[in-house]
């Protein structure tokens, strides 16, 4: 049995191009799907123009058509045989639904450890707090110095 094998990828990778009406070849060649996308963009832009009352007159339609061409060209850069427009759109929507990494919120209220405050008080007959040295030193640096107050 011959084990040299090929997939059907090449067979299915045909990209239909519309050259224009019969006998009237256009100056450009574009895929059929590009015309569909252009029409979609043009419709959206026309609605937007109409709603916002921008660029009245024929010039406005020309700008819409041009904008649709630009948007279509930009879109078609992401569309290929491997990535049909439906898949590109689905992936775009999937990106919108993706959970984002949010850093944990910083604390708004700081609760000090009472022992950190107490350690610095020279109150006789009180047992020394059982904390580590590093914590003591931190409390000395950050806590209020009340020793003078008690001595008075």
């Amino acid at each position, binding site marked *: *049995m011959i*084990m*040299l*094998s*090929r*997939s*059907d*990828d*090449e*067979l*299915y*990778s*045909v990209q*239909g*191009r*519309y*050259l*224009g*009406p*019969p*006998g009237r*070849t256009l100056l450009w060649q574009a895929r059929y799907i590009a015309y569909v996308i252009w029409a979609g963009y043009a419709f959206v832009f026309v609605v937007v123009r109409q709603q916002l009352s921008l660029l009245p007159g024929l010039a406005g339609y020309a700008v819409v058509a041009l904008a649709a061409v630009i948007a279509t060209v930009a879109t078609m850069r992401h569309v290929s045989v*491997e*990535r*049909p427009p*439906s*898949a*590109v759109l*689905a*992936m*775009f929507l*999937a*990106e919108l*639904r*993706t*959970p*984002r*990494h949010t850093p944990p919120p910083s604390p708004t209220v700081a609760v000090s450890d009472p022992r950190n405050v107490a350690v610095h008080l020279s109150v006789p007959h009180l047992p020394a707090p059982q904390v580590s040295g590093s914590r003591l030193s931190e409390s000395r640096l950050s806590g209020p110095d009340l020793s003078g107050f008690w001595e008075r």
Partner: protein
Amino acid sequence: MSRAWAAPRQLHHFDLCARSQPPDVVAESGPAVDPRRFRSTGRSRPPTGGAPEVAEYAPRLALRAITGHLAHTRRGTTAWYRLAPRPWSMRADQDREAMMSSIGLALAQLPDRWLHWRVSWRPYPAAQWARRHDEWATPLPDQPAATSWEQHLVGQQQRALTSPKAIKDVYLGVEINRGRAWISALADQMTSRGGDRGRGRWSGRRSGRWPGLQGVWGRFVDGELDALDDEIRAVDTVLSGALGGEPISAPDMLQLLYRSCALGLPAETVMPAAPTTDWETSDLAAVDQLARWTADPYAPVVQVSGTAAGQRVTRHVLIASLGRMGEIDVPGVDLPWMTVPDRLAAPIEWSARMRVLPDEHASRSLRHVAARVEAQQRHYEHDHGLHAPPDLARRIELAAQVRDELDTDHTGLSARCEGWWRLAIPATTERAALETFDQVRHLYHPKIAVERCEAQYQLAREFIPGEPLATTAYRRRMSVRHAAMAVPMTAELIGDDHGPLVFTSSATGRPIAWDPWHDMDTRQVSGLTPIIGTLGSGKTFLMGTLAAQAVRSAGAYVTLLDPSGPLIRLTELPELRGHARAVSLLDAPAGTLNPFTMITDPQRRTYRDDPSGDTAYRRDLDTTQAQRAALVISVLTQLLPAAIRRDGQVQQLLLHAVNQIGHGPDHDLTEVLSALRYTSGGGDRLASSLGPILSTSGPARLLLGTPEQEIWSAGTDRLLVLSTRGLTPPREDVDQQDWSLDEQLSLPLLHLAAWLAYRRVYELPRAAPKLMGFDELRWLSMTSTGRTLITQFARDNRKYRARVLIAGQLASDVLKLGGDKSGDKSGDESGLAALCHDVFVGRTTDEAAQADALRLLRIPTGIGYEAHLGELSATTHPTAGLAADAPREFVWRSGEACEGVQLDVTGDHFDGLRQALDTNAARAGD
């Protein structure tokens, strides 16, 4: 056997809560309120203070329940199977082709079903191995200032856990009839309305408020479920064939869900218990909450954060898709295309969704695409008078070919399938993930494109069983034959998972355990084990490692014949203190190698105490004495000058002299010399010829006399290294007539040293595990006594539990043993080599030697494996020799399995062993 379908009764819980609760509400159980308390007041519900509303748990997964190997979602049910690993490397191409064909045919029997391939990795189950190994092993007592047995086991486990991808798990999910899932849910709702929610499969469907309606539904649902049972049984049968699929067990299902929901996180070495195969919806919280998946907009990776081994871990997982495929040749040129990334260190996982298209569907699709191509061609040529791009004509031709193949091929392998193949590449950083992705692309280049796209989060979700396909981008279409060339379940199948961890797989780094006596005890295979390789290939290192491990773990009696010296240092290992002895034969007492004492008489007490025992004993005694006489005559013949040896009368005279003095073990060669002197017909001349070489002042004194005691202690010596350093082996390519006296004497002494080692086997308890190692196979196979000894090894090793390692540089030395001595290659299979269950071949550079080595390994020659033998242990620096930590690579044939392995003595607990076996004199400080 009907399947348990209890789980779908949970479906309605989700349906109800999914409408009212966000999907990530965590379930909490409220305080129990007894409804009877309110019945006494005559009110059905209390106006205030009633039971609190409890938010039901709703997983973020599509999975809703698991029953046995069936995973239920709201859209359908998938039956999951674990596929048996298949050997691939070092196999004949026709075996591989047959395997791929059978896999393709099995896939073709599952038309129009979505199949979900999942390939995952798990670390070596080191803890289970250590537990089993500790039970099996009989280690030597711990010594002070030496690695204790406990430390040794811990070190072995740490070493085994260095690779995250030791064991490959290949799962296949097969879609069961999707359209009927709603029946399960509907019947479940009706059942639960009847109030019977606590029993097994559909137990309450005939009870309840509307028994008549329930009965109708019950019968309907019963019929549907019975049909599904039949369908599942049919799928089970298909999967159990060529694919070797077994319905997934509870621990495997847990493993699959863990590896999917915690995609890319380090695998857990100790998994939670999986006592049951049934998962209800709320049980899915165990895997649903394993990790938090996030991704930045259009980021190339998805971040998976969770805990592993008690620590917070984040991994960056890149999901790639297989793109367009060119022409591939498996097995001729290419690897199975789903195993290509296996050689990378990263544990790359696979998720593939595919379905085999029914023939009419495939034909329709092909007709459609052909029509599109033809229309495009017409558009160019007829509508616009332009030349159509040439690829259109090629596509039309291709479509015709494929349609013709579909129409004429009746093997089933031409069926068409489509699918999406994704890879999950985990790494600690985004940059590392991208680098690994580049490596994967290069591995597939230029045959297959590997693509990365956006929507990484949704693509990663595809790896979870039951989740929908994220996108239809990168759809692959191919024949079933082409899909079968993926063969994702290839793995190394060697070792026995029983003994010490001696090797690791060269391809994947999987630790391989090997107990040298396990196969001999359980499968009655031969323990004769050739080790072949050129100088510096690691033969001595392998022999020494196996010997040290055997003594350390099994308390085996090991005897090594060491011609060059490095193995002596094994006896200085602190772990073996008091149980190892090194003996230099040149310093041994006179008579140590007396050929009369090499063969031990049988013991009468080991035979039955009746006349038949007497007969057997006498027969064996006669055989032994004849063998002893033959050995003595052979030794004397080798000691004679070459010119005299060829005389036809020599053998007759020697036999006469030996017969005169008797065949008992209490004689020695001086008696033979005396007898020869009084033998007429030239005996005197022979005695004179033997006189100079049998001088008592040289090494020949080892042959003369009888030693007062053994040179080893039978009670304590587990490792005995017999060093023959000082003997001068004969020069190669020098005629025997030109040998010096030392050279002439060394050959019989080397042989007798081997016989001495073998004698030890007979003297030790028969049931005790024994291992013998002989270097310089070449000299052993040169003479009849050497060949007799090897034949003895092959015959007796199993009865005496003796693993015999014989090392040499040329496989031809083994191939010619017991077979056709003329060197005819066709006689190889009938020789002693065919009996060898285990064979190790290290680096071999000479072309003829490579071909012989492949024959010894029973690997097809002439298809490219020769070069592989030359690349073994290729990490060696050409000027530095083998470093102590350099991997010694071998091709290991063990029965039907044959794999590339490397000797693994890394880790602190092997420091002493590495230093002892380091043959680099400068580093060793010799």
